């Protein structure tokens, strides 16, 4: 099975986590015509990421995945506002609370310790300037190197990623989509950050390029020993790269487990559906899609937000919110059908 090349044993869980997200809530708050509206895109999410671990976040569109990582990296602009909770990173033994930092302090962390590969990130490259300028603009101020040493480091980094240093002299339109994506990954990792956030880095790439890009990401991750927060809706990508996966539904974490556990023995009905809906070559059984549609985050259903679409819904699901509890070691799930209804 070719996929096996990309699999690594899960990272040890004992080490101090690099990222601790504690009861995070972030809402889009709008005030228009005297009407206040909260869109609860991130609602009470807690998770930790260990050193060297690839933590995957999965969920359907408009489930709040992108908002979650925006909040985690501190890229918060109105109307998005953090309503509660905290995000703490541990960089070099020092704990940094993202929301307690001044913008200047945050600036020193970005790129050097924490960097991002965003959705459609090939678009970060300025189309009318050669790629060298993007490296100069983004990475140079954070590296603290003299220009000659900086370019030497950039070239060495590109060589390490099997990229021709000649890309520096190209314009973005001269490169294919896959090359551009690999270049932006090189850009995001040139400062050897400890924590990398990747949002849909391979969506819209074709299968062969996707495989190359994922292999490259996994390779960088292993070489730098960085932790990854890897967001994608594509469960087969999670199966390939993520050590652990958290499933987000309507702004809440509903299940979290090590990847093989999640694929073999998912407990939450939503996760079970996600895994079962994956098409496979050689299998033509009909894949059902979930009835109903994603709930509105402005007016989410009461109780468990999944209950209107859930085949196992009970009365309690409509009234109470299930907590994310440990159902087995390193396997958390938020479902009354699993944990039993509260008396």
């Amino acid at each position, binding site marked *: 099975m070719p996929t096996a090349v990309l699999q690594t044993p899960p990272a040890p869980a004992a080490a101090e986590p690099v990222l601790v997200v504690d009861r995070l809530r972030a809402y889009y708050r709008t005030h228009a015509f005297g009407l206040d509206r909260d869109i609860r895109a991130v609602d009470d999410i807690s998770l930790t990421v260990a050193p060297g671990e690839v933590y995957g976040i999965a969920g359907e569109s408009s489930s709040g995945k992108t908002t979650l990582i925006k909040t985690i990296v501190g890229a918060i602009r109105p109307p998005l506002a953090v309503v509660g909770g905290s995000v703490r990173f541990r960089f070099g033994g020092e704990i940094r609370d993202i929301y307690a930092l001044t913008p200047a302090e945050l600036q020193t962390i970005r790129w050097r310790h924490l960097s991002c590969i965003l959705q459609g990130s090939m678009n970060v490259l300025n189309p009318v300037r050669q790629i060298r300028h993007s490296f100069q603009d983004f990475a140079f101020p954070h590296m603290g190197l003299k220009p000659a040493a900086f370019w030497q480091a950039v070239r060495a980094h590109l060589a390490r990623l099997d990229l021709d240093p000649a890309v520096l002299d190209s314009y973005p339109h001269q490169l294919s989509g896959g090359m551009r994506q690999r270049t932006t990954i090189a850009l995001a990792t040139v400062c050897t950050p400890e924590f990398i956030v990747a949002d849909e880095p391979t969506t819209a790439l074709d299968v062969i390029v996707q495989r190359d890009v994922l292999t490259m990401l996994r390779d960088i991750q292993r070489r730098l020993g960085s932790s990854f927060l890897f967001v994608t*809706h594509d469960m087969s990508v999670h199966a390939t790269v993520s050590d652990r996966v958290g499933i987000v539904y309507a702004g809440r974490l509903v299940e979290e487990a090590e990847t093989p556990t999640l694929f*073999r023995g998912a407990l939450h009905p939503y996760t079970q559906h996600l895994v079962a809906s994956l098409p496979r070559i050689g299998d033509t059984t009909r894949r059902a899609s979930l009835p109903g549609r994603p709930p509105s985050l402005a007016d989410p259903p009461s109780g468990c937000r999944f209950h209107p679409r859930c085949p196992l819904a009970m009365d309690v699901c409509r009234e109470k919110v299930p907590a994310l509890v440990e159902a087995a070691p390193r396997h958390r799930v938020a479902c009354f059908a699993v944990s039993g209804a509260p008396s």
Partner: protein
Amino acid sequence: MSLILDVDHVGKTFVQGGLLSRREVEAVRDVSFSLDAERPEILSVVGESGSGKSTLAAMVLGRLVPTRGRILFEGGDVAAIRSRAGRRAFMARVQPVLQNPFEAFNPLKRVDRYLFATAANFVVGGGRTRAAIEERVDRALVEVGLTLAEVRGRFPHELSGGQLQRTAIARALIPEPRLLVADEPVSMVDASLRMAIVNLFGALRDRLGLSIIYITHDLATAYYISDRILIMRKGEVVERGAARAVLDNPQHPYSIALKQAVLTPDFG
């Protein structure tokens, strides 16, 4: 046997550069296939980026004129359509669904505007009242699992990618076309929705007798839904046949490489 679409030895060459540096790029090379009118089917066209899939789609839609060969839609040459009325009649029969729903809609315009404009263009006869148009738009939206109430007055940024893509498909359904050309329609949406859209294509084929050209790089959904498949590489068709037979047992080295690159979500 009558053909709804007959693509006959079609090629497309693009010329790059100007007077001094002229370079020809052959995007599509000698591609032939046809769709039977009696047997609606989903034909998948798969291949990596740059394999000429989208160029082929653009030619079928009449957006590009083939350099060589002909494309006949219901017996008429697509490239020979010149008049506005002829173009409109053709577009009522053949509709596109594009890859990136965020680019398909102008961010400064409300989404429903496109739906109403399409409906106003294509709803014919005495039924062109506001109510008839809205009813038609709502019916198309219901086909894709949305309602007009959800979409009305919204801007593209207010809808999720999946909702936008479903809106784009609903828009294509408004004229009640014969043929849908879907260029990477699911590459931007999540797994559950991807299956919803692919199942929707199957239902449209079975219920409305719609033929669909499904352009994708996702072999798993191509296997799941399509009747026939063309595998393209560098503008040429390298392998073709019944979708499941081809993907179960690919022959061409490129098809084999493509199948191997598919990520399998299986554990032990």
